[in-house]
C-alpha cells in the first residue's frame, strides 16, 4: 500500500476537477482491492489444483508377493526381481511392475533391498566379481547387507532394506516402499 499516496499525487491530472482528498483515496483503495480479488480468484483456484499432490497420502506399502524361496540361490547370492502390483497413476489403475528388489537368501530367511540408490534414485546393479552393489550414475558402492562400502560414495545412506514376510511354506512377500533420495534418514515417499 506504500505506492498509494504516490499514485494519488499523480492523480491531479490537468482535466480532472477532483483534487486529491479522502474520496479519491477511497476510490483508489477500492479499485486496488477489487483488482486484487479479480486476480486472486483465478490464480488461487489454479494454485489449489496445482498443489493438490501435496494433499495426497504417501504409499502405505502393502506386502507384495515376489517369488518363492526355491528361486533364490542357497549360497546367498542376491537376485533381482520385479515388483508387480496394482499401480495407480493419477486416473489409471492397472497391474504392472512398480519397482524392483534384490532378494538374498540367508538359510530360511530372506533379506530384501530396494534397488533404488538413495543418492539420486538410479537403479543399482549387483557386481558379482566385487560381491557388492554398484550405482552406475555416481559410483556409490554398497555391501551385500546394503551398507555403504566405499566411504567415498556420494550416497547419504545405505540401500533401503524392506520388510520381508515368509508366507506358507516358501512364499516371499515384501512390504514394498520407496524412500526419499538425498537424505541420511529413511523417509517413506
Amino acid at each position: 500500500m506504500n505506492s498509494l499516496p504516490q499514485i494519488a499525487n499523480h492523480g491531479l491530472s490537468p482535466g480532472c476537477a477532483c483534487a486529491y482528498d479522502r474520496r479519491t483515496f477511497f476510490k483508489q483503495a477500492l479499485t486496488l482491492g477489487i483488482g486484487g480479488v479479480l486476480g486472486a480468484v483465478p490464480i488461487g483456484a489454479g494454485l489449489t489444483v496445482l498443489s493438490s499432490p501435496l494433499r495426497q497420502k504417501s504409499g502405505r506399502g502393502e506386502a507384495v508377493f515376489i517369488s518363492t524361496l526355491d528361486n533364490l540361490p542357497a549360497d546367498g547370492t542376491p537376485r533381482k526381481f520385479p515388483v508387480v502390483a496394482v499401480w495407480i497413476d493419477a486416473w489409471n489403475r492397472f497391474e504392472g511392475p512398480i519397482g524392483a528388489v534384490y532378494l538374498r537368501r540367508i538359510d530360511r530367511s530372506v533379506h530384501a533391498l530396494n534397488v533404488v540408490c538413495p543418492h539420486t534414485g538410479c537403479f543399482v546393479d549387483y557386481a558379482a566379481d566385487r560381491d557388492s552393489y554398484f550405482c552406475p550414475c555416481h559410483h556409490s558402492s554398497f555391501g551385500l547387507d546394503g551398507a555403504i562400502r566405499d566411504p567415498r560414495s556420494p550416497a547419504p545412506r545405505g540401500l533401503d532394506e524392506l520388510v520381508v514376510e515368509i508366507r506358507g511354506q516358501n512364499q516371499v512377500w515384501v512390504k514394498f516402499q520407496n524412500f526419499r533420495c538425498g537424505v541420511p534418514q529413511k523417509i517413506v515417499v
Partner: protein
Amino acid sequence: MKSLLAWIDQRTGYRAVARAALYENVPGGARWRYVWGSTLTFTFFIQVVTGLFLWLAYSPSSQTAWESVYFIQYQMTGGWLLRGLHHYTAQAMNVLLVLHLVQITIDGAYKAPRELNFWFGQALLMLVLALSLTGYLLPWDQKGFWATKVATNIMGITPLIGPQLQKIVLGGAEYGHHTLTRFFALHAGVLPVTVVLLIVAHVYLFRRHGLTAKVPRRGPDCAFWPDQVLRDVVACLAVLAAVFFLILRPRLTGGELGVELGAPADPSEPYAAARPEWYFLFLYQFLKWFPGGTEVLGAIVIPGLVMALIAAMPLIGRWKLGHRFNLSFLGVLFAGIGTLTILAIAGDRHQPDYQVAVVSARRQAARSRLLADVMGIPPAGAVTLLRNDPLTEGPRLFARHCAACHRYDGADGLGQPCREKQCASDLKGFASRAWLAGLLDPATVASPKYFGATALREGEMVDYARTTVAAFTPGQRTQLQQVIATISAEAKLNSQRDLDTHDAALIEEGRQMLADKMLRCTECHQFRKPDQSAMAPDLTGYGSREWLISFISNPEHGRFYGKGNDHMPRFGEDKVLSAQAIALIADWLRGDCEPEMPQATLQAKK
C-alpha cells in the same frame, strides 16, 4: 524502496508508460458504458490463467483426455472450481463480445479513423468463437465429441478445400489422438497467441484514436485512473459474480458443483442429445431449414455474408443514413439470432426423444464417474469401463438383439417402446419369486408377459397352470409358494440374497418336494438329477449366471427347449453374439451390476 524503483525507472522508463496508461483522458468523464472492453480483457486474463493451470493436468489423447478431465474435476482439490471458471468465463466472453459490439456501434466508435480497429475487433470475435469451438471437444465426452463432429463435418462441405481442410484439422479421416493434439494446440497455442497479438493492436489503436465519447458529454474530462478503472473493476467483479453463480447453481437443485462432464466419447455409441453450446444454437437451428444439398448456404455462405456485412459497417457508416442502417442491421441480426436460439431451445423442450436422450446421457455420465471412482480406469481408457459394464451395455445389447421378441418391463430395455410385435416373455425380474409366481398363476401364465405371445401359449406349461394349479387346494398352494422359492433360489439373485438365506430351511424342504415329484414339476423338467426324458428347461441352477449364459448361447440344447425351441436364435452357438456380450446381458438381467448406483444420485439427476 524508492531508490530501487528509481533505478528500475531509469533503465526501463516504466513510470512514463504507467502514467500514459493510467492518465489517459476520458472525455466527458468516466461512464459505465465504457466498461465492456475492460471486462473482455479481464475474462481473457481469467481464461489464460485458468487455462494454463488446466494445461498442467490435461492430457490430450483419446485414451487420456476424458480421464484427465475426470481427474481434474473429481479428484484434484478445487478442480471443479478451476474448470468451472474456465467453462463459464468462456460463455461470459461471448456475451460480453456482443455487448461490446453493440456499445461501440451505438456510440459510432467503428467509424473513420477507427475502421481498422473495428476489423481487429471483429477478428477477435471470430477467434473467441473458434476458441469456444475447439475447447468444447477437449474433455472428449459424448457431448463434445458428437457436437464437434457436426461442426467439422460442416467444415468438410466448404467448397473446394472442404475435405482436405477437414482431414488436416482432424489429423486423419476419423476422430482420434491427433484430433485432440490439433484441437489442443489450436486452443491453447495458436488461437490465444493470435488473440494476444490482436488485443495489443486493438488497445494500441484504441489509445491512439482515443475514446469515442458518448454525446452529449455529461461532465468535464477525467483521467482513466481511478474513476473509470473503478467502474471497470466493479463491472469485472459483476462478471466474476455471474460466473460464480453459474458454477454454484447446480447446488440449488441438488446437483454436482461445477461443469458437467458427460460419459467418455464412444464413436460406436451415437449420442442423441448432441447439441452445440448454447451460443451456437442459432446456427444449429438455422441449419435445420436447409434441405439436403444446400447446407453449404446455411452453414457457410450466409454466415460468411453476414460477417462481410459486419466488416463493411465502417464503410457503410460514411453514408448519410449509414449509421442508422448499421444499427438496424445489428438489431435485426441479434433479434434473428435470439429468435433462432429460442426456437432451438423450445423445439428440444417439446421433443420427447431429446428429453429421453438427455436423461439417459446424465445417467451414463453418473455411471462413468462411479465406475472410474470405484474401479479406477484401465490404460485402454474409461470407455472400456462402460463397454464392460452390464448396467450400461446389457440394456443396449438387449434392445439390439432381444427386444425384437422379448420385452423388459414392457419396453426395449432402454425404456423405449418397441415397434415389433412382442412374441416372447417379459424378462424384467426373470427367475425372481415374483416373476415365477406370475408364470404359475392361471390368470397371467398366458398373458404376453409369459407365454401369451409365443408359440407355447397353448403348451403344456400354460395348460398346467390353468388346469392343475387352478384346482390346487389351499395346502397345495402353500406348497407351490415353497417350490417357487426353491426354484428361484437356484438363480442366486443378488436382490434375493437375504430372502434366500432367511428361507434356507423352507428351500431345503422344497428341494425334497421336487425330488419327490410333488406338484408334478419334474414330470417335464429336470431338477438336480439327470433325466433323459425331460423335455422342458432344466430347473437345476434355473436363472443362475451359468444357466442364463448357456440358455442364450443355445436354447436348442437338450437341457433347455431342445427341438421345442420356439424361434429364439442360438446366439452363442451361431456366433451372433460374443461370449462377453452374452455374459453382459445375463448379468444385467440378473441385476449383477457392480458397483450399484446409489438411488439418491439417480433421482437427483432426474
